[in-house]
Each structure stands twice: as structure tokens, then as C-alpha cells.
């Protein structure tokens, strides 16, 4: 498809497990973003890549969160030793150029539930 895709769409993890969430951006999009969206709230920024370079990770809530984009296309958000407060929808977005003043295209999200 032409849009941003994410997998899995739903993930249930037991507390303490590690999870990996995948994002396939729109082909040719330079910038990629990860957001965390808690129930009933707006998305909150986690991290930003320009090609393979992670230019901003100021939103990552702890060192248990790690993101990579090794070849400048697909990205993976990894959460180690998941906690209940990590339960949220994780959204990926991509944009053609930089983050400034351009539209970001969002994927459908991965709903993570930590039990």
C-alpha cells in the first residue's frame, strides 16, 4: 500500500517482557517519527529520525525505550522490561522532508497492552 504501515496492530505483553514494534514508512520519506498515545489523549512525541540518523530522542520516557532505523527506511521501536504504564497506542509517522512545516502521515498504530 501507499501509506504508513505498522505491525503488529495489537500486542499483549506480560510485565517484564521485551517488545518490538515495526514501522514501514511511505517509500522515499526522509523523516520518521514515533509517538505514544495514551487513552483519551493526544499523541506525544517520542523520537525523530532523518534517514538513519536519530536526531531527537528527547521524548523517550526511559532508557527502556530504544528506536532504530538502520537503513533509513523501516524503523523498530523496542521496549525492554515492559511496565503497565507502557500500555498505549504507539504511532509512527513519516514525512517527505524535515519535520518543519510539513504534513506527517500517520500509520494505524500498534496498541500495546501490558498485563
Amino acid at each position, binding site marked *: 500500500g501507499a501509506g504508513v504501515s505498522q505491525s503488529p496492530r495489537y500486542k499483549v505483553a506480560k510485565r517484564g517482557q521485551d517488545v518490538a514494534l515495526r514501522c514501514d514508512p511511505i517509500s522515499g520519506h526522509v523523516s520518521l517519527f514515533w509517538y505514544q498515545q495514551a487513552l483519551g489523549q493526544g*499523541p506525544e512525541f517520542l523520537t525523530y529520525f532523518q534517514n538513519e540518523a536519530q536526531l531527537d530522542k528527547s521524548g523517550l520516557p526511559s532508557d527502556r525505550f530504544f528506536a532504530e532505523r538502520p537503513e533509513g527506511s523501516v524503523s523498530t521501536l523496542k521496549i525492554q522490561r515492559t511496565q503497565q504504564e507502557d500500555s498505549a497506542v504507539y504511532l509512527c509517522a513519516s514525512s517527505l522532508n524535515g*519535520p*518543519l512545516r510539513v*504534513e506527517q502521515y500517520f500509520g494505524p498504530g500498534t496498541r500495546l497492552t501490558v498485563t
Partner: protein
Amino acid sequence: GESVGLHLPTLSVQEGDNSIINCAYSNSASDYFIWYKQESGKGPQFIIDIRSNMDKRQGQRVTVLLNKTVKHLSLQIAATQPGDSAVYFCAENSLTGNQFYFGTGTSLTVIP
């Protein structure tokens, strides 16, 4: 901004009426704004954007108004349709920032 948690601001309108959704932002350095629509189980979808050198921009059935003096943004939807039912977010970005800051969102319900 203040977190509303599970209690999203809500707006109910009759089909065919006009809707106005409001958003206040806090960063006076923000100079680019986007309205997103998010349906249940989907990611946010771009509706319309506006830059700070404008105070009004129109799209198809939608108009965004920007009042920089009071740091207020509104989205007007004309002739609201059932398919417009969703949560609407405003997002702001500044020239020096890498990220968009999203508001809490407003849940719009269109009554047929």
C-alpha cells in the same frame, strides 16, 4: 497543557449543522499548525494546516482560523456529516523544534 485524561471535551451536532472546534496553544513561538482527525482504531489524518503569517485558511468544507494574539485556533466544519464523527486534534510546531505538540482533542459526534 492540562491533561483531560479519559474526559475528552465533546461536541454533538445535528447532521447538516456547522461545527466549531477550538484549541488553545501555549507556545508563542509556534508558527505552524495542523488539524488532524482521528477515527477509532486509526492514526491521525491530516485535515488542514495554517502558518502563522495567515489568520484564515479554507479547504473543502473546513476552515481554520488562527488568532495569534490570544493563541487560539479553531476548526470550522460546514454541513457536518456522520462521517465527520471522530476525535479532532490540533498540533503546533515551531521553527526550531523537531516535534509537533498535540492538544488533548475534541470528540465530535454527528447526530443523523
